[in-house]
């Protein structure tokens, strides 16, 4: 049940073979969808790594109950199903949604902004989903850092900027790398969010697999695409597994 479905796909992909490959190559949307996947995933990754780093840094500086509070907030999205989140974003971002209502009542805007069914909405929704996955790898490398290194650097005359640039950042770089790779891997596989929050031109690679399967009823081509995606993902996952994870500076 674990391996056989993949064998089945591999077989169908081989059966389709060159014909399927030509179909993918001649499909004018293939290029667009690959580009969408890379661009949307890269933006999501960038946003969540920055936000995740900020949250992890705050959690690292805070102690006790305050740290627990920050972690609780980060964990909350884990416990909300992806459809609930996507539906919530449609309520928040739609024409008569929460954001537009608030901005109007504050007289910041007169006409509602178009916030839904575009790339902006997809990235907002995906970043919300991915943020916990960005937070934990960074937080894991930060925990063992001794808070006194801040004072040590200050006492040696380092400015705040130099402290961040030359002490904290290098020590947490492996966490950043792990969190960037992980969130990119997760983002590139998104299926639900691009459909619900995006426009038809924001579809991603997972949607294309579904399109070949359910719209064109072409299991062979869908399988070939799925196998290509799996191969690309395997490379990323192998890279991710090579990144040192936590606590290699624990004895600092």
């Amino acid at each position: 049940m674990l391996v056989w479905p993949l064998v089945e796909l591999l077989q169908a992909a081989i059966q389709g073979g060159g014909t399927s490959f030509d179909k993918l190559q001649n499909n004018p949307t293939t290029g667009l969808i690959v580009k969408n996947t890379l661009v949307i995933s890269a933006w999501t990754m960038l946003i969540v790594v920055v936000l995740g780093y900020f949250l992890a840094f705050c959690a690292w500086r805070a102690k006790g109950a305050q740290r627990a509070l920050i972690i609780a907030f980060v964990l909350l999205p884990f416990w909300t199903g992806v459809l609930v989140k996507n539906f919530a974003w449609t309520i928040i971002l739609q024409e008569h949604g929460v954001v537009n209502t608030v901005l109007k009542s504050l007289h910041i805007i007169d006409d509602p902004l178009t916030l839904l069914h575009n790339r902006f909405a997809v990235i907002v929704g995906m970043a919300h989903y991915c943020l916990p996955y960005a937070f934990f790898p960074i937080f894991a490398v930060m925990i063992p850092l001794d808070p006194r290194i801040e004072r040590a650097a200050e006492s040696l005359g380092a400015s705040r900027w130099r402290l961040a640039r030359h002490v904290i950042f290098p020590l947490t770089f492996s966490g950043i790398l792990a969190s960037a790779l992980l969130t990119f891997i997760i983002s590139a596989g998104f299926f639900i969010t691009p459909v619900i929050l995006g426009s038809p031109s924001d579809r991603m690679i997972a949607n294309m697999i579904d399109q070949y399967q359910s719209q064109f009823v072409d299991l062979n081509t869908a399988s070939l695409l799925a196998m290509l995606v799996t191969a690309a993902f395997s490379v990323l996952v192998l890279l991710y597994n090579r990144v040192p994870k936590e606590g290699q500076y624990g004895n600092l």
Partner: protein
Amino acid sequence: MAISEAAPELAGTRPRTLSVNWTKIVMWVALAPVFVYLVLPSLIVIPIAFTSSKVIEWPPPSLSLDTFGKFFADDAWTSAIASSFLIALIVMVVATIVGTLAAIGLSGKPFLGRGVLVGVILMPLAIPVVVLGLGDFAFLARAGRMLNGLQLVGTRPGIAVAQSVLAVPFVYVVMSAALAGLNPQLVRSAQSLGAGTWSLFLHVYFPAVKMGLIASALFAFIVSFDEPVVAYFLQGPDAMTLPVKMYTDIQYNLTPLIAVSSTILLAVSTTIFVALMLFVGRRSKAVPLPGAAIPTTSSSSGN
């Protein structure tokens, strides 16, 4: 300058300066919008579920239970609730048994091929779930043909079997951690005292990993209950789970009924989260948090 400022602080002779507190205030002010971003999507669906309006509007004009009434009078939605609960219960049982047996079998001394087996068990975490969904579809279609035309695609058992594969890695990780706390000599001494397989499990393994088992079962349940993609590929007229029904309705039939469904999903996952915290979180440190502890976590329940 920095030295003269920092040194007394290091010695702990000077009370904390104002500037330290300012850093804190700035930090929490900057955190506030991030918190709103994290929390808002989880809470906003609840007032919409109690709206008196027939369309989704913000703010709800007034509160009422009409939408709930309509939801439970709608056969499509009640059937979706039944599917979701039934499938999640099957997944809970199947995945907990399979994952626990795998963890027991692979615990203890390393042996040849162990790494490969662990890799296979954890594989669903590293493969895009859409690929698994498509693979499950192709596999169950063929298996059905081979079993004299048995219908598997588009049925509740079909979805349950496929989703169990997604839940097994979570069970495996939790149970491996729980088993790591079990002294292997306990097993050997029980065996030397003549304990059979069953009594070994009942009196040695079970008490040691009870909390892990509860946590595993809860994880497995929620993995299935919130899972949209595999359930989407394998859906059928009588086998449409809540997330799949929501996915379709958000696109073609956007009504406050979806908010009721969201509230139900939210209530179930909150209950499970609280149960995990109450039963497991306090007693055993060995049970890891989801995602945080899983080595190659990709999102299994997802996206």
